[in-house]
């Protein structure tokens, strides 16, 4: 199964745009800001988020059920990031166990946060993603600072992701490739 089924807005997936919005569009990415379709999708996402916040304010003040509203909003957030369902190998025919692609992307992003000077910009899974226990290639694009060897940081992330993702992913990891898309001199990426 290939990874080319993503809905794209301009050159970008909804997940990439959501991540960019999560970072308050900073640092500004010229590739996104210069893409009219991507900018239009960003604006729609912002409207959706504003509507979610409005719902929280309105409903919470109406009956005080903030926990219920918060769980609905968490459901909205995770739905927007979900991506594909990745099936877990299991013998029970009455059960469907699933890890969403978005959960694994988020995990890889937090693994990048574990390492200084590295920010994960994008993660793609390709190969037998829809086959329980299938072989999958993991492609990670990062931004790194120059305070230390970029290749050492990329290798450290590759090893970290291979070890941790292997304990959580329902597929067999065939390869992990880390691509450094950009370097930042000074500061944080």
């Amino acid at each position, binding site marked *: 199964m290939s990874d080319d089924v993503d809905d794209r807005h301009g050159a970008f997936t909804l997940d990439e745009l959501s991540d960019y919005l999560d970072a308050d569009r900073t640092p500004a990415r010229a590739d996104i800001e210069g893409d009219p379709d991507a900018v239009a999708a960003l604006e729609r996402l912002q409207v959706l988020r504003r509507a979610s916040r409005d719902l929280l304010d309105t409903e919470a003040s109406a009956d005080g059920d903030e926990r219920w509203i918060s769980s609905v909003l968490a459901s909205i957030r995770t739905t927007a990031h979900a991506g594909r369902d990745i099936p877990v190998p299991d013998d029970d025919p009455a059960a469907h166990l699933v*890890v969403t692609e978005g959960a694994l992307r988020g995990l890889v992003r937090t693994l990048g946060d574990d390492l200084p000077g590295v920010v994960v910009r994008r993660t793609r899974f390709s190969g037998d993603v829809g086959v329980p226990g299938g072989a999958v290639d993991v492609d990670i694009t990062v931004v790194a600072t120059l305070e230390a060897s970029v290749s050492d940081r990329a290798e450290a992330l590759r090893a970290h992701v291979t070890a941790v993702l292997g304990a959580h992913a*329902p597929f067999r990891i065939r390869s992990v490739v880390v691509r450094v898309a950009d370097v930042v001199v000074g500061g944080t990426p």
Partner: protein
Amino acid sequence: MTADVRAVSRELTAVVLAVPGVRSVLPPGPGLATLVRDVRSVLEIPRDGGAVLVQDRPDGARVRVVVTTDRAVPTIAVLRSVRDAVVAAAQHSLGAAPSDVTVRVVEID
């Protein structure tokens, strides 16, 4: 099935929350297309049930569970533990095992 599905939902939500590695239980979300078309549709989820969706069907109960999990615990093990806990609790409440159980991990943190 004769049990009140909302009561069963509340019970199953508590059971799932007790599984080690589970951080939270979320109500199943709508499809992304539905979400974008009408964000208010998600508010149709009943408030007096738990977060676990329990549907009464002629061929048996259908149960949907959406969880966020702790990365310190292997996700696949958590998924299977949730499934086992839900099936056992549902069997106790409903008198029969559910005909369909879906457990989805949407966030690992």
